[in-house]
């Protein structure tokens, strides 16, 4: 960045204000801090299960800020804590979900951690079988087209999940009908233990877009502003009625697959450490510092505020009410 001091900074070029990029950083940090807290609680025996967003926050927030959560919809996947927060869920919502309490806005304690979804936040309900959400998002985008509304639908999934039939069928449908949907692949290089080379033989997941007749874009998932830029372009395309885009954000999963996993069986510490050095949290912070938008004291203020909310959320959730056991029988059907 040195020597570029006089040209417009990247985020200004993209039309993002200083406040907006700080807000982006704050959301990323919020996701990271919640995630770290979840692991602590898991290791302390308080939460049976955690599935992480760590390493993918940059991609998630870059993408989410390119949308308008008041009109747009998201059909995210279990790692999308950043997206969930950007669409309006609070640390308290998340902690209630993790503790499976009655007030959990995602499922009232019915679903596993990471299985978000709440209509009021425009977040489609997440299930476990991967990729089923891809056709759902296409159907939601079809609704926009049929109603002549301008909202776009974002759907995310891992690169492993891009090998499911539902990815193919969903993309193809969206291509044929030029639907306002953004397929966002968070390529973190692994499907649990299976490395990319054993999952696919193509160079880029984004290459698959060609077979569906819409653009495919590869972006460095640690470059928050680049992710924002390509997603914004995709959102604009979609709103204009020009159809879907497949975005592949290159990321890395910094944690094991879940709290049940031990990643030492299938990847080296060196590989993980190398990825940690490129973490979007670090890269984006660097950018903001260089832009003069952030320093250690401002960072601390943000961090303290977030930690306080997370602490309060944890405390609240820890003692919140469970759903009544017999409510197991509710909501099989409408009546």
């Amino acid at each position, binding site marked *: 960045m040195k020597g570029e001091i006089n040209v417009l900074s990247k985020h200004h070029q993209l039309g993002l204000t200083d406040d907006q990029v700080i807000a982006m950083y704050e959301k990323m940090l919020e996701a990271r801090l919640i995630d770290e807290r979840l692991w602590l609680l898991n290791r302390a025996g308080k939460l049976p299960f955690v599935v992480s967003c760590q390493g993918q926050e940059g991609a998630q927030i870059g993408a989410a800020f390119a949308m308008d959560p008041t009109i747009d919809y998201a059909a995210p996947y279990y790692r999308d804590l950043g997206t969930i927060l950007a669409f309006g869920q609070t640390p308290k919502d998340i902690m209630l979900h993790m503790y499976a309490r009655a007030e959990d806005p995602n499922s009232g304690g019915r679903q596993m951690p990471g299985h978000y*979804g709440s209509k009021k936040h425009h977040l*489609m309900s997440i299930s476990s079988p991967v990729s089923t959400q891809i056709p759902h998002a296409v159907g939601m985008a079809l609704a926009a087209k049929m109603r002549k509304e301008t909202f776009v639908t974002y759907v995310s999934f891992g690169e492993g999940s891009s090998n499911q039939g539902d990815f193919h069928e969903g993309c193809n449908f969206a291509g044929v009908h030029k639907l306002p949907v953004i397929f966002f692949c968070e390529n973190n290089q692994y499907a649990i233990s299976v490395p990319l080379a054993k999952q696919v033989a193509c160079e880029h997941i984004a290459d698959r877009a060609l077979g569906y007749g819409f653009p495919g874009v590869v972006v460095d998932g640690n470059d928050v502003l680049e992710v924002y830029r390509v997603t914004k372009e995709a959102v604009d395309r979609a709103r204009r009625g020009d159809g879907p885009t497949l975005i592949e954000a290159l990321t890395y999963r910094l944690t094991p697959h879940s709290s049940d996993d031990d990643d030492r069986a299938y990847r080296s510490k060196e590989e993980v450490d190398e990825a940690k050095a490129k973490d979007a949290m670090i890269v984006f912070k660097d950018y903001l510092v260089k832009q003069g938008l952030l320093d250690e004291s401002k960072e601390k203020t943000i961090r303290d505020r977030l930690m306080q909310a997370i602490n309060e959320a944890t405390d609240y959730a820890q003692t919140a009410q469970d759903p009544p056991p017999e409510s197991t029988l509710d909501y099989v059907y409408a009546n």
Partner: protein
Amino acid sequence: MAVKLFIDAIRDALFHAMREDEQVFVLGEDVGVRGGVFRVTQGLIEEFGEQRVMDTPLAESGIVGVAIGAAAMGFKPVAEIQFVDFILPAVNQIISEAAKMRYRSNNDWTCPLVIRAPFGGGVHGALYHSQSLEALFYHVPGLKIVIPSTAADAKGLLLAAIRDPDPVLFFEHKGMYRLIRDEVPDGEHIVPIGKATLRKTGDDITVITYGLMVHYALEVATKLEQEGIHAHILDLRTIAPLDREAIIEAARHTGKVLIVHEDNKTGGVGAEIAAMIAEEALFDLDAPIMRLAGPDVPAMPYNAGMEKFYMLNPQKIEDAMRNLARF
């Protein structure tokens, strides 16, 4: 009120529902200009256009998955699966997603979706154009399954299915499309989901069945009346959730029960009906609970003699009914 073919009554319901509610739309393979391979959707595209009568790519999981997404946004999609046999690629979307959407989201997101599919044999359809697949789904809470036996019910149940706030599988016996005709009320006509109906009363034996087999059973019953055997015939109409009360009452009424379905026997819908009765009305029974069903082979062969061997028909039902009456 006019006498209509089964197939025309279904089309009637679609026209009515689509005129009435803009959120209703039809999607599936060849449902557009072709009007569906059986012509159920014929004429719809002319009135409602290709967006509300949407020819989809050949991909059932995609069809159902997209319909679930649209339903989540408040649409009422009526997806056609060309033959019920081809619903299998969509099973994950149906069971993991449609059936569990309301439950897993704690009543937040819902899935008001109808999936129509022709099923059933006896039409030279062989292994993959003859199957009955209701037994694959009736075990799954969150789904409703409807199988009409009359044109009037086809219309009334399909309208009920479209209005239903939960996913409904609507299975149409393809052999009935142009075989069955009866009086169908014009305009609005709702037959409630979950209610079986007595097609005939009698005091000697109870036959519990659905779909095409209702007609065979009635035909046989008429014949057996002359021999003094009076059958009580319950048409289930809804396969899930089953009308427990009507089943138990019908079983108690004669104490002799024959369950009839075209689908193969083991684990078929008849299993649950028999189990229900054995659990709740055992001491009212005067005979073992009998089931007459297709043989336990993977599916119906093409060869005419083999197909006939597989299929139930009035003769086989007559034998079973007489056998039970004599017990």
